[in-house]
């Protein structure tokens, strides 16, 4: 850069030399680009960092909205350790995230391989499968709730016609309620994984395949020993994006089961909402939130780490 800048500057008046390179200008000049960063940093400090810190702070208090707060130290956390309902909701969350994201990855990989060739039909299909990802999650939930309806729902009707026992209904039976909300998440978000993996497939180098074919590898071997390893970084990114978002699940479950029957679909988000927004026990809800916060931050930090080491193809 400096070499280029100097050759340009020779004929210029003295003051111009400084600003002939934007990087130099902004790194040394007084009109610094730092001014461009300050607003968003201030905004996030006030509306992101401050609420999180306040939430951590208030978790050491007995505080309900409208009543004075009293410092109780770790008592909220002691209470939490014995709160069967919350611990159960954590387990439900983990089951939800692992099965939803796992299924989405499996389907997503399969569908991406099916769609991975160029034709007009494939282009249309690739467009159509995007529609669920734009769906307002609450609306998606309400649509599926109606489909699942035990008496008049289309899904219930055809399952009964096919002779599949669904008891009082998929969303009403404890054994199938969680499965039925996972299916909706799979419907809405598998396409995202398909799109990410398709981009990864497109960016794969050709040489390993040519070498593999020359060495007499079968299609299955090519997939197992060439495609999968090369795709690994892309798959990890897809997994992390989906895990972060699945940890936030709220709307769909709220719409379909409201956490029931019993507490069979009450994920941590829902439990925290019940305690914090409905019962207004802010202090205790904050303590619960911190557990979720730690889980999310761990996944998030791992994701960002991967995002920086730009080793994977397709997805930056």
């Amino acid at each position: 850069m400096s070499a280029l800048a100097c050759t340009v500057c020779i004929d210029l008046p003295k003051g111009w030399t400084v600003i002939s390179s934007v990087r130099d200008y902004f790194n040394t000049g007084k009109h610094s680009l730092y001014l461009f960063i300050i607003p968003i940093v201030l905004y996030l400090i006030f509306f992101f960092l401050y609420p999180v810190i306040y939430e951590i702070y208030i978790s050491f208090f007995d505080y309900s909205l409208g009543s004075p707060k009293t410092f109780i130290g770790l008592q909220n956390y002691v209470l939490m350790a014995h709160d069967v309902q919350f611990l159960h909701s954590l387990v439900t969350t983990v089951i939800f995230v692992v099965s939803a994201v796992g299924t989405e990855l499996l389907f997503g990989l399969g569908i991406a391989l099916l769609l991975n060739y160029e034709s007009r039909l494939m282009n249309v299909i690739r467009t159509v499968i995007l529609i669920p990802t734009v769906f307002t999650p609450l609306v998606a939930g309400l649509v599926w709730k109606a489909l699942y309806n035990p008496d008049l729902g289309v899904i219930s009707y055809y399952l009964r016609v096919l002779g599949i026992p669904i008891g009082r209904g998929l969303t009403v039976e404890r054994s199938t309620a969680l499965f039925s909300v996972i299916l909706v998440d799979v419907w809405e978000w598998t396409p995202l994984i398909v799109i990410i993996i398709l981009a990864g497939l497109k960016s794969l180098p050709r040489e390993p395949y040519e070498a593999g074919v020359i060495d007499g590898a079968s299609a299955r071997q090519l997939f197992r020993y060439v495609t999968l390893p090369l795709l690994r970084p892309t798959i990890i990114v897809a997994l992390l994006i989906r895990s972060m978002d699945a940890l936030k699940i709220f709307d769909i479950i709220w719409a379909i089961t409201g956490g029931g029957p019993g507490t069979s679909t009450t994920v941590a988000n829902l439990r925290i909402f019940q305690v914090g927004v409905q019962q207004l026990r802010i202090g205790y809800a904050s303590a619960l939130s911190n557990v979720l916060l730690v889980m999310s931050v761990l996944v998030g930090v791992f994701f960002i780490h991967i995002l920086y080491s730009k080793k994977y193809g397709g997805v930056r």
Partner: protein
Amino acid sequence: MITTTSSRLRGALLHGARGLMLTGIIVFVLFPIFWMVTTAFKQRIDMFILPPQWIFKPTIANFKFILSTMSVGRWVLNSGLISLGTMALSLLLGVPAGYAFSRIHFRGKRILLTFILLTRALPPVVIVLPFRVIMQWLGLFGTRTAVILIDTVYDAAFTAWLMSGMFESIPVDIEDAALVDGCSPIQAFWRIILPLSKPGLVTASLFTFILSWNDFLFALTLTSPETATLPIGMLSTYGILNQGWTYMMALGCLAIVPVVFISLLLQRYYVSGLTFGGIK
């Protein structure tokens, strides 16, 4: 001879299996959408007939009913204002920040970017509780501004990340040339770099709009009946219209149509946003 026949048969079988799977996928993806749209045009009585009626006389009575008896106009207005407000504020905060991140290097930049990206991982339910308390202090509880402010936390951060990637793909030499020609750095950014980064700007606008439009939890916690958005409106009808699916699906169509339409229209940009700007 035998081998060619059997391999041809195998090829045909594979082809058939592939077609079958693709059909299955399409049906699975489209069926709920198809059901929602057809239900919105069904007469209420058709809903209670089993087996489900797939051929019926369409009616727009449901739309007429919801438009005449509910505050649909206000919900649409609130959703629109909140989404547009979030979009504007996010671009205002995120675009300059993205530019700065792509052009200057300083100590702690990576930590700052990590901090910004961490917003993506933050479960809404964690932040909405303290946020609600803060909004009450500020006297903003129940206003559209409150929802815009919390949506922007996520969307401004997203925009900054997306745009820094966009700006990085524009060589810094272009601005240098502009400076030599007598532009000020701000002018170079405004007149040359911004027009060049139109794809990123479209993606950021589209995505911040959709994220905000689709929000439910923040609106549920922070709005009043006056400032309720479409999803909240849908929910409020739920109790009144006992199994009034036809009405609810008509409302659902109103909520979905704008976002589906613009995302299909701007599909390339939408995909780019979905994948954190990974696919250009």
